């Protein structure tokens, strides 16, 4: 009787393994297909940007002639460098300011207990659910009165991007919540002020979340179109890459500038990709090992 049982179990085990292997194969095939479909446009844009033989859209993928003509024309014929500079300034300024705001906000919400803390957190969470463009017209009105539109748009946009950034506290608050409170307490007993606890103990332990916050702060203005378009729509001087390229393309013929547009896309992607590659190693390393008994 016992023997029969063993055999049954054994068979079931074999069958399970085979069917698992089959389902894994199917899943992987689907995933690879999706990846190819997803990667194709990026691949296509890079190839288009090096196409020399024509500036139009063509029904084949690989260029017959490779060259940097599109890149050279882009810088010569448009204000691309200006737009790129504007975008970079906005991206960097926003990344720095947002990180300061978000991390201080999150730390306070994670560590200090004060009246109305819960209410404030819920309020901000709900407020953050309203799409930003609801305030578009009002912001434009206020900014145009203050002279923060058109040429001054980058300054205005930095304010827009940073003003409500503290409401994005939840991810980093979640991270701070995982750092044992006793570390703060030990530092406070050791003679640290709240601020010293924050930058001498908590910040060095928070590299992953700092980097995440910086990247998110950088990405938002880098790819923004809607808000930037409203605030800088009249003057090339105040535009970011997305708005600049769109304005330029809408004023010219797509067929004569399609490959240049692709070249611009590639250039815009380079800083983001570089920053990601450079910073990703910080995600990997766990930094809190050995702090407390775990």
């Amino acid at each position, binding site marked *: 009787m016992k023997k029969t049982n063993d055999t049954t179990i054994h068979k079931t085990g074999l069958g399970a393994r085979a069917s698992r292997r089959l389902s894994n194969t199917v899943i992987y095939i689907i995933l690879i297909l999706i990846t190819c479909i997803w990667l194709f446009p990026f691949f296509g844009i890079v190839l288009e940007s090096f196409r020399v033989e024509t500036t139009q859209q063509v029904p084949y993928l690989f260029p017959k002639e490779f060259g940097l003509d599109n890149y050279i024309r882009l810088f010569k014929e448009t204000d691309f460098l200006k737009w790129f500079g504007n975008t970079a300034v906005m991206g960097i300024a926003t990344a720095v300011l947002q990180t300061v705001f978000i991390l201080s906000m999150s730390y306070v919400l994670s560590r200090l207990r004060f009246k109305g803390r819960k209410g404030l957190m819920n309020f901000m969470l709900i407020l953050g659910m309203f799409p930003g463009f609801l305030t578009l017209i009002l912001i434009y009105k206020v900014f145009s009165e203050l002279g923060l539109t058109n040429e001054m748009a980058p300054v205005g946009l930095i304010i827009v991007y940073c003003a409500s950034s503290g409401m994005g506290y939840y991810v980093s608050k979640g991270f701070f919540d995982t750092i*044992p409170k*006793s*570390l703060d*307490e*030990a*530092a*406070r*007993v*050791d*003679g*640290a*002020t709240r601020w*010293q606890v924050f930058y001498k*103990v908590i910040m*060095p*332990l928070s590299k992953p979340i700092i980097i995440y916050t910086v990247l998110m702060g950088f990405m938002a203005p880098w790819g923004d179109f809607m808000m930037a378009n409203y605030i800088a729509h009249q003057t090339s001087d105040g535009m970011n890459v997305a708005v600049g390229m769109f304005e330029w393309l809408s004023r010219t013929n797509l067929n004569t500038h399609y490959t240049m547009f692709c070249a611009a896309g590639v250039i815009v992607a380079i800083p983001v990709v570089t920053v990601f590659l450079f910073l990703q190693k910080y995600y990997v390393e766990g*930094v*809190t*090992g*050995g*702090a*407390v*008994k775990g």
Partner: protein
Amino acid sequence: MATVKLTNVKKIYGKDTVAVQDFNLDIADKEFIVFVGPSGCGKSTTLRMIAGLEDISEGTVEIDGVVVNDLQPRDRDIAMVFQNYALYPHLTVFENMAFSLRLKKVPQEIVYEKVTQAAEILGITEYLTRKPRALSGGQRQRVAIGRAMVRDSKVFLMDEPLSNLDAKLRNQMRAEIILLRQKIDTTFIYVTHDQTEAMTLGDRIVIMKDGFIQQVGTPTEVFDMPLNLFVAEFIGAPKMNTFKTDLVCEGGKYYVTPYGAKIEVSGKKAAMLADKKVGAREIVLGVRPEHFKMSTAGDPAAIPCTIKVNEMMGSELHLHVETATGDRLIVRIPTVSLDDEVRHSMVYGATIYVTFEGKVMHFFDPETEQNLLV
């Protein structure tokens, strides 16, 4: 080096959760005080109020005569060792220990001197360049103690520093803390739930329950004269046996009559009963396991009982026995006092006769649970 004085200290969480109340205590300079009690008794909360990590709801805490209620932890000149070590994981052992000195902008030579000196005392010199994650639990706890040592602070607070260590390491570290105490001559406040630590470390012990102090005294005082039933059962291991019985008075002598036996109260306890003019009454009697001894069937002082569990501890036997009325008692018998034959006969279900010394019992009021002799 400082005195600490707590006056009517109370801690309320939220609206009505009272964690500590009526806490009054004077801690002398260089005294080693231990707060002990079961979890949730308020001992850690009290310590954290002294440290400044919790607000004080009512009452005052004074360090060296200065009320510190509204001072930040950093302004109280205290050092603290945490249960989970709380080492800074991004700093080396050296920098962990030097952290407070660096904040005070102490010159580098002095930092170096103090840290290496503390490391030497604690035997962690070779780990100074390591990060905490590369240390074992015992080593981490030493670093945590070292970090507190270099401060030369007025009061040294320890919040269950040994409870994360395994039993063997805990015993070793306990002995080291006793040695350490002789080297760093300061006021210690130590929190633990372990009565052995409390008894071995403390000059005085503060026993707490449900936010109230139950008794304050030297280890000998709380062991020999527990103020109430809770203290009697909490201090001493295995715990004191307590059972209801009658106190009777015959011909000027006191007797207790547990489980049909009749045992005379003798020595100091008899005199104290007479002094307090305690009459015949129902009492809760407390007898420590080690005060029992073997007896025989014919002895009028013998209590017959059945063995339920026999724990062989090596030098002694811990017998969990059941009386005729179904009460459970723990009896501790030195192995050396028993013949091999008797020892081997002590198996599950065997009947034995035990009795106890007349001079070592404790008398409690069944209603108030207070010691009748205090």
